[in-house]
Every structure is written in C-alpha cells, then in structure tokens.
C-alpha cells in the first residue's frame, strides 16, 4: 500500500539526531510492548509480514505522530483482534470474557530457544531464478493495495542484479493469505542518478532487496 511508512526519498522530515548513550528502551512500557509482541507472536497466529502490515495500516497522520513502540502497540492490538485471540470488547474494557485456547504458552525458560529459532523466511526449496548477477532489470510499476516490500522510489527504475540471496517467502502474499510463494530475492543496484536525477553524485548507488515478482528484464 502506498502509505507514509514508505518513506524513502521524502522531504521535510528534519535532521537526523543521534542521542548520546541511548538506553535500549526509553520507558518500561516500550520494553513491555516489545516483549508482548514476541510472546503473543509465539502462538503462531501471525507471521512477520502480517506484523509489518498491521503497523503499516495505522492511519497515516497517526503513524507520523507515533513513536516506534506506539506503532507496535497499534499493530499488536490489530493482530490480536483480527486473529481472534482477543475480542474488541475485551480490548476496550480490559476484562477477559473467556480464557483463550492457547496450548503453547511461552514460558521464561523457552525464551532463549524462541529467539534462536529461525522464522522461516528463507525457504529450502528449489525454485529457478529469473535472473543472475549482472542482468539488467526494471522494477515493476505496480501499486498493490496490500502489503508490499517494493518501495515506491524504485518502481519503474532500471537496475542491475548485484547478488542472488536465494529463495525466500514472498511478503506480499504471505502477509495476506499466508501463501509463501517461494521465489528468489536479489540485491539490485540502482545508480543514484537513475533514482534521483542529475543533481546527485554519479558515483553513488542504492542497493535494494527485491523479489522475482517485483522485477522484469530490462
């Protein structure tokens, strides 16, 4: 979806400010919401792409105003209701009307194993790549209404395959229908001038990780 989360190339956002000696979390609720997302996610009711999509659907003005962990809170509440773990009434009142059926409650002792376990984005199947290193490609000019990892700033732009990362789950379908649609993902090199015009350095480039379904031969 073409929303404000797709920020590459936007103007007017201000200066980048690095905080000295920044803590991992700025308030204990940030730490709790991060942990809640991981613990609730252990029930397997959603995948990584569904999580990202839940945050992208925050209304644009709210998204820009929110802090990072406020977006996580919005996304988590959205997923809990959509996936039937919590009703919207329970969320509004804060009172449980029924126990959830959760056979896999994450315990403290399970945490190290949870964080070590791969989330399965890489898929161990043989799929023929559409492209190889050095091939000229063009990013498709598409505007999906759902989740996509094809940023607007490369759509319609020409690039070159830098490397083939292998076969991965396709985010666009995994976010909505859990269809993994395994396919190759590549690092694609776009020159800065191809993306932004003549005012930028001719030496520079941007490398974007893109899937077969985002690319055509150029």
């Amino acid at each position, binding site marked *: 979806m073409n929303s404000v989360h797709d920020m*590459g190339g936007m103007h007017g956002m*201000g200066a980048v400010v690095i905080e000295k000696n920044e803590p*991992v979390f700025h308030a204990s609720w940030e730490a709790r919401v991060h942990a*809640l997302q991981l613990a609730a996610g252990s029930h397997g009711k959603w995948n990584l792409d569904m999580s990202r999509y839940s945050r992208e659907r925050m209304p644009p003005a709210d998204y820009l105003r929110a802090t990072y962990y406020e977006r996580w809170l919005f996304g988590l509440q959205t997923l809990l209701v959509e996936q039937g773990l919590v009703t919207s009434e329970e969320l509004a009142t804060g009172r449980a009307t029924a126990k959830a059926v959760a056979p896999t409650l994450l315990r403290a002792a399970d945490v190290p194993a949870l964080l070590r376990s791969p989330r399965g984005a890489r898929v161990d199947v043989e799929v023929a790549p559409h492209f190889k290193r050095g091939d000229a490609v063009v990013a498709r000019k598409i505007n999906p209404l759902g989740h996509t990892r094809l940023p607007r700033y490369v759509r319609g732009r020409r690039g070159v395959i830098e490397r083939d990362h292998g076969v991965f789950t396709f985010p666009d379908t995994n976010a909505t229908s859990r269809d993994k649609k395994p396919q190759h993902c590549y690092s694609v090199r776009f020159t800065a001038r191809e993306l932004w015009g003549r005012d930028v350095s001719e*030496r520079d480039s*941007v490398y974007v990780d893109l899937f077969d379904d985002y690319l055509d031969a150029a």
Partner: protein
Amino acid sequence: MPHDHDDDHVREHDRPLEGPALRVKALESLLTEKGLVDPKALDELIDMYETKVGPHNGARIVARAWVDPGYRTRLLSDATAAIAELGFTGRQGEDMVVLENTAGVHNMVVCTLCSCYPWPVLGLPPVWYKSAPYRARAVIDPRGVLRELGLTLSEEIEVKVWDSTAEVRYLVLPERPAGTEGWTEEQLAGIVTRDAMVGVAKVERTTMAER
C-alpha cells in the same frame, strides 16, 4: 512545579500512568488473564534485549575480522556462518551480509519501509535509525546525512546505501583506524561503535579515550 533533571529518569510506574503506558499495562493484564502470555517470559525477553544482545556483539565480529585475515575472508563470503562461529544467531540475523568499508567505498545501511536491523549483532535499533528523517533521507541524500552526523566524504569516495527491504540483514565492517597496530582483539572491540557498524560513522582511535 518544574521537574529537575532526575525526575526525567524516574520510570513511569512510579507515577500515575497515562497514554501508552496505561494502555500497555491494561493489555498485559488482559493477555495474562486470558492465558496468552506469562509475565515472567516477558521479563526474560526484556532482559535478553537489554543486556545480552547489543552492539558489543558486532564489535567482537569486527575486531576478529581486523586481526584474523582468514576470519575476514569467511565473514565477507558467508557472513551468517562466520557470525555464528562467535555464537551470534537467531531472530533478525538469520541471513547476514557483511559490507566492507575501504578507502574508496563507504557503505551505509537503512530500512526505508520499517526499521529492519540485525538484532543478534547490534541489538534493537536506536531511535535515529527508526526515525522518519533517516528513513526518508538516507537513500536520496546519504552524503548530506553523513555530513550532518560529522562525517564528510570526499567526492572520490563511492557511497553505497543498502535498503533492507527483505529478510537479509546488513552489517558494515568499518576500516581499522591507523595507530592501532599491535592492539589486542579486546582493545579493538572496545573502540568499534554501533554507528560505525551501520555505516554512519568511522571508527576512531580516540574513541577509546572517551569510553
């Protein structure tokens, strides 16, 4: 009544809750009551990200690569396996690529669509990395962003920006600063910063004096 400086550091559970703090507390109570989360598991998750993972992990990788040419070669050809040699694996680090900064090439990493970041080696991302200014500007004006952050690159240097739009996570291998010949791996790890491993700073020999 104006707050003095120390009040800013009082954790919010010591004063009345409002805004997201109140909503998160209510959500945790609800999920606990429903049997969906165990608060002790939440404590454990928080401890992992506050103390166990962080840029000190990435710094060990960089220092090893600086002193061990064989390790450096493995790191640049199969980063996931080389990083796993030091025990760093798992969530948001399953597929790693390491980018080497040299006298002629400067790499920097961004995630324009959200805030993808290599958790096992750098920990959770800092606010600036997640902020709209960095996500918006890193791809269109990397040299301007670097200049604001105190790193002015000559026009002769090639800038490569890596947008983490999929599940590969990137770590920058910074240049080893001059004047560190003969330093131990531990001493070298002590001067490697998070910002250098994202590619918005160089490693300075003087960093050690400030630590």
